[in-house]
């Protein structure tokens, strides 16, 4: 039986590894509870996104090769970060001039909730009695297409929220602007500090007004930026990564 379990390589982005180990733990525990055989390759490094987005894509070829050699042997690669997954999936074939890599990555690498939805067809059962504010991280939303963006006029769908349809007590905050960017944007957050802060504050105000009790997202980077502004202003909207919420419900 053990052989039929999917073998999942856990990809934990650099900043999650160092600053949010609890998100890594939650991701690992969810996958284990759902009967996956999970390995965390110890030699993994960064996917190279920060460099590439700064205009130094050409310097990341070795990082890309290193990533692939650490991960391609698994059935699936799963990560609690839409942004890093998007970078690997959408940019690696181009950076490495290897168009055939695309279909391989398409079938292999997934953001956590996307994996739970698309591959494990999970319907989370349990209770989570909170009003949850979902921040739609841009790279997960528009990049990976986890839900319909507000600009596009196709049939609505939302892979993330649909995972929670059976969860009792959970109410989603109704935001004024359902998918405006939080303003993090990697080095944008320091290069364009004033706008970055202004965008973050506006997102937080929207959540406060909507009565959000817990703020969540697919990406810890957005949450890190929003929490940092919140902390500086001495308000304290609790922040949980989706992995932590899911892990708590299905425990």
């Amino acid at each position, binding site marked *: 039986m053990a052989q039929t379990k999917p073998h999942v390589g856990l990809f934990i982005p650099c900043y999650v*590894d160092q600053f949010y180990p609890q998100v890594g733990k939650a991701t690992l525990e969810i996958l284990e509870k759902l009967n996956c055989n999970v390995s965390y390759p110890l030699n993994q*490094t960064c996917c190279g996104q920060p460099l590439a987005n700064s*205009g130094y894509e*050409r310097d990341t070829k070795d990082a890309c090769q290193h990533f692939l050699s650490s991960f391609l042997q698994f059935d699936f690669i799963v990560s609690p970060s839409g942004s890093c997954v998007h970078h690997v999936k959408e940019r690696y074939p181009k950076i490495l001039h290897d168009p055939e890599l695309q279909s391989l990555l398409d079938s292999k690498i997934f953001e956590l909730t996307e994996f739970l939805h698309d591959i494990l067809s999970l319907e989370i059962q349990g209770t989570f009695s909170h009003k949850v504010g979902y921040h739609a991280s841009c790279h997960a939303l528009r990049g990976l297409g986890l839900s319909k963006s507000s600009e596009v006029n196709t049939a609505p769908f939302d892979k993330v929220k649909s995972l929670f349809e059976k969860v009792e007590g959970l109410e989603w905050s109704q935001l004024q602007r359902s998918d405006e960017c939080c303003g993090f944007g*990697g080095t944008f957050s*320091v*290069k364009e500090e004033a706008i970055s802060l202004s*965008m*973050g504050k506006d997102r937080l105000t929207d959540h406060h007004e909507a009565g959000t009790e817990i703020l969540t997202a697919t990406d810890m980077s957005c949450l890190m930026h929003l929490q940092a502004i919140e902390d500086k202003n001495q308000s304290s909207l609790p922040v949980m990564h989706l992995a932590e919420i899911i892990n708590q419900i299905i425990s």
Partner: protein
Amino acid sequence: MSHSIASTDFLKNEEHAKWHDETLWMIREKRDLASQKVPEWENLRTLASSIKEHVLSNLDHLLLEFEANATKNGIQVHWAKDAQEHNQFVLDILKKQSCAQVVKSKSILTEECHLNPFLEKNGIEVIDTDLGERIVQFLHQPPSHIVLPAIHLKKRDISELFHQKLQTEKGNEDPYYLTQAARNHLREKFLKAKVAITGVNFGIAETGEFVVCTNEGNADMGVHLADVHIACMGIEKLIPRRNDLGVFLRLLARSATGQAITNYTSHFRGPEKGKQIHLILVDNGRTEQLGREKFRNSLKCIRCGACMNTCPIYRRSGGFSYQSTVPGPIGSILSPGLDLKKYSSLPFASTLCGSCTDVCPVKINIHEQLYEWRQEITKANPNYAESLSMKLASGIFKSPLAYRISGFLMRKLIINLPDSLLYNPWNVWGKGRKLPKAPQESFRNWYLNHRKDEQ
């Protein structure tokens, strides 16, 4: 001045910045509602994008077809390779008509060519007849938005300006009253003008006609009263057939302002008896952009402005912060093609959120082009300190050991450094934000202690 410095300045006036953001967001919402009423909206976008794809791939002979048909209709066609040639053509026509005053309806191309200052230097008065454009012209400012040129100004600013320029009542901010004053002022100019200049929204190769879309009817008023009509058109504004026009007209106004169609959609096919139409076809860097594989489809743009209205950065920094004729996301992928050094900060004025790409009626992959321009800019303008740190980082990312050491150091640094160092003014992140609370143990260490033996 870099975009970030200009935007920091813009955000200093918090109340105005909030108003600017909300006003443009309101227009984005109007666009959403209008587009949702068209069930085939997404198909229209795909169709429009493919038609423009076809145009860009066949631009050479479509332009010749257009020229031949326009000439047959009695339109005089001129080819301008750059802004200078364009301006000279306009001046020559005006001189031939002994015309010292010309009315002009909105044309971003003439802004791009800096036609107004050129004509003024040559003793010709230019009167912009679009209300918003007239307002910014009074203030000696460029437009801050391609569809809403005076969107950075509030009613009270305009009331004050009209009081000075048009002697309206001081403090009267009634939009109807102010518009009437502008109408009377402009009417007088219209009646006197012998030559009228307009832009072009669409040129139709099959028929040799061109189409101008406005809301105020000022283009028509100018053209019909004047003896000579000069139409300035970028070579990418072409569409193959009249049949294709409907696709674009349905997308344009809905994307721009949420209207189903612009109030005036005027077709110009040939001059009336005794009158003249001159059409100037302008390249000014377009052929070069067409040759850049990664950036060529930026030329599909129909100038609806939707990417500006949706952009969280444009809304919070205003058009002037871009310091280019076309601001916002589309400006940030067009301008570096004109002057890479001058506009090098623009592709970085984005979080790459992708909202512009999703809103664009002709499906330009704007945010991907922003990413691509970043790659070009770091190659063309090397910043040695930055490129060295990137080389260092890339070395770290390919070596697992170096990576672990640097991550460990970063976390320990944050745990152990005093707040006075973490939040000093040189630390940009920490000015308006707290640093994350660093945990004692990384995920990797935890994994080694708790899971490793099981493998």
